[in-house]
């Protein structure tokens, strides 16, 4: 009671205080409003926003998704997604129909795919992402073998292949060869044919899969097995399998980051690509992502350390950047 008496004395009536509370309440509510274009646009500072759709090679997938992860962290407005569909699947189902902005590939685009892209009016440029050393592996218990020449490799994998190891080299055991390799949708398969087999074609007498994991498990469980896949898997699991040195005429060379970047590991070190569509590069956030991608291709920690590919040289990076800037200018200009 005393307090209300005091209030009266100072001239604050109930009506006045109600009005004051209502006013304060209205102000408070006003502070809790948002405009209809969404309340969380307060990231500020970074105007880049929009989706980036990427599909393609499962070999390039780890590299692209690692770069994307960093880019998404730096630019919260950008909403990137990536699918691992295989190089060919990405080109024919998504990229050349105009549904994705980039397509990753572990081999250059093929004529049939070029045609499809042209039919749908999709223009693109080719960017080199990194270098991969295609690795041939055998069981770690197979102490009778350390290296193969390219001819021997072809003998094992050609369309009419050697059935037992001693057909390949006399001192090898008389045991059947069990082959594990990439499926024919894979860019790795195409590259292996191009580099080793040529006209002779690839055998169909092997376990074909898109999963490096299955190849590794197959080889790890069988002393007389042989398999091949991208370098990353072997790089992350060096104890599980034994990588063979490849003799291209100058003595056997083991696959490693050094031998691949110095160009010693022939003919199995191969460039990996990504293809941005020129129409997409007209959008600023996609152009910015493409620039970021090319910048990161020389990042040793990321490309070699985290993923297990050979980073591009400064020189390659400069070339790629010029090519990209030209394309961006063409798209936006």
């Amino acid at each position, binding site marked *: 009671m005393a307090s209300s008496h005091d209030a009266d004395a100072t001239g604050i009536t109930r009506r006045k205080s109600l009005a004051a509370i209502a006013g304060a309440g209205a102000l408070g*509510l006003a502070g*809790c*409003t*948002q*405009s*209809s274009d969404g*309340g969380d646009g307060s990231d500020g500072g970074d105007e880049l926003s929009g*989706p980036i*759709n990427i*599909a393609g090679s*499962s070999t390039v*997938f*780890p590299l692209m*998704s*690692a770069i*994307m*992860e960093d880019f*998404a962290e730096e630019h919260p407005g950008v*909403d*990137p*997604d*990536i*699918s*691992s*569909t295989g190089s060919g699947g990405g080109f024919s*189902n*998504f990229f050349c129909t105009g*549904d994705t902005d980039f397509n990753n590939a572990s081999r250059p685009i093929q004529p049939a795919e070029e045609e499809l892209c042209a039919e749908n009016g999709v223009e693109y440029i080719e960017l080199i992402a990194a270098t991969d050393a295609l690795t041939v592996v055998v069981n770690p218990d197979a102490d009778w073998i350390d290296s193969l020449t390219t001819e021997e490799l072809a003998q094992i994998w050609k369309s009419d292949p050697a059935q037992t190891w001693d057909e390949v080299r006399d001192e090898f055991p008389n045991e059947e060869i069990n082959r594990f390799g990439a499926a024919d949708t894979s860019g790795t398969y195409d590259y292996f044919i191009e580099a080793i087999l040529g006209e002779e074609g690839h055998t169909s007498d092997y376990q074909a899969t*898109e*999963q*490096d*994991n299955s190849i590794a498990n197959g080889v790890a469980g069988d002393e007389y097995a042989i398999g091949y896949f991208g370098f*990353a*898997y072997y*790089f*992350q*699991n060096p104890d599980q399998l034994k990588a063979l040195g490849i003799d291209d005429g100058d003595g056997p060379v083991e696959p490693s980051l050094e031998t691949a970047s110095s160009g010693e590991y022939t003919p199995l070190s191969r460039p990996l690509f990504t293809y941005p569509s020129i129409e997409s590069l007209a959008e600023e956030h996609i152009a910015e992502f493409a620039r970021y991608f090319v910048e990161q291709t020389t990042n040793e920690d990321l490309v070699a350390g*985290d*993923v*297990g590919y050979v980073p591009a040289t400064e020189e390659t990076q400069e070339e790629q950047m010029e090519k990209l800037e030209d394309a961006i200018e063409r798209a936006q200009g």
Partner: protein
Amino acid sequence: MATENSNADGFGEVSRVRGIAFEYLSFGASVFGLVALGVLLVYVAIDAFDLANASPAWLLTYFLTLVVPFLAFCLYSADDPEVTRRALGALGGGLVAVAVLFTAIEALVTPIPRLNWQLAYLFVVAAPVTAYLAYVGSRGRVGAVGFGLLGRLVGGVAIGLAVGTLFLVFDALLWFLAYTLGVLPAVGLYAFGRARDEARARTAAAPVALVGLVAAVVLRGVVATYPSDLIIYLWTVAVPVAAAGAFLVADRRSRTAGAVVGGVPLALATAGGFLAAGAGLPAPTVLLALVLTGVPTAVYVSRVVDAGEGLAGLGLPLLLAAGVVAGALIVEALGVPAPDPWLDPSYLTEAPSRTPTEAGLYPAIVGSVIIIAMVAVLSFALGVGTSVFLEEYTPESGPLGTLTRILQVNIANLAAVPSVVYGLLGLGLFANLLGLGIGTAVTAALTLSLLILPITIISAQEAIRSVPDDLRRGSDAMGATRWQTTKNVVLPEAMPGILTGTILALGRAIGETAPLIMIGAATTVFRAPDSLFSRFSAMPMQIYTWAGFPQADFRYGVVAAGVITLLIILVGMNGTAILLRNRAERGS
């Protein structure tokens, strides 16, 4: 004696060997299947929670602080000396048996990878005994109260999180207008009509709702300023839920009790929401989870206190929480090496990453939840609609009857079509022809709904067919129209069966990967989808990708954590549906 003889006469000479062999064959088959499944789950759990690195001291600590008090609670609730004796026998005897058997196998046959006898005891004896005792305990009054409270706490949080997830893609502003202009007036009118027995008010509710919804859609394009998201959720979800709880209690007890039951959780949730906003947490989700947990819990506690029986059960959540805290303190104090689980809070709230320890499943979880919610609604509506039409409205004879039968056979065949084919259909029809976009959430939901539609239709048809015809004829005889018969007699009777079929079908849909690959769903995304037309990733896709990563940590730990997450969400979803079904069963 006489009966035995007559049996022998009837069947001639019968050898019992065949019967016994058959029995053991069936027993063997079921044991083989269950054990194989069990071993798989045990290894997945060991990987996901890093139990291989759990020291025996750590296991013992939590066994004593968490498991033993829980078992004691269940035994106290069951209040049956026989059960107590059996449980203690199984725990003690199991300890000796597992230790001896395990050591013998390790020493004589082969070392068992990544498992020690303590873990084997945990999975083979402790977990089944705990489950059994939880079942027995929940039948006692104290246990029923405890588990009821626990269920409301856990279920409320889960539903709150799920609703919060759905609001990530559905336009909250549109919902605000629709609720304010359509839903609220219509419900108010209907309630008024019920209370005052005004038939006109009740019939007016539907048109009012419709007008309100149309107005909402129109106004959404015009109005520029809205209350903040937090206020919207407070107004459209928290207040109605609290009001419903308050009314429930006010009806039974007093207005004051009702006001307390509704008001206290509402105030707590509001405060929590604003605090979360200040702390940078997702405020709307916090608000929803708190209010959807708080109000049912308060209603439940008020009802238990009213009934006055089994009050001790209300302590169960406290008992468990105290066990966890005490365990953590002891482990900390003694410096016991604790496992570092892959499945931890950051795994559930972070985006995928190339570093195994930082990898998270959040965008894929949100994608899966959104898709499955849409699939549930779509397939339920389409499936039940189709089956009701086929069972109740189409003639059984004549040319139309033949047509119906052809349709039925085709539906049954469609159920066996491989999911990849549905993926192609989704790609062609929804993504390309209708232009809903490649790999968008709405395309995926439509495709998956089509995929499980045959299963839902067939099971709903079976359920409707199993409703006795006498009931329909009886309803007809009362002068009911066919619609009234279907609505009041057939559907309530068939609902448990319909729900069972839908639950099974949804379980299939959540794990499907092939159709998602076909429609171009992304393998990896770094943000949760924020509209129905954004590209998304789903849990099985992300898990499959991780399984192919070269690093061993991905292939074992991260994948296992993903599998457990998928299983938990699946079990939670099915659990909700089963609760609904049981309710429908009891209702009929």
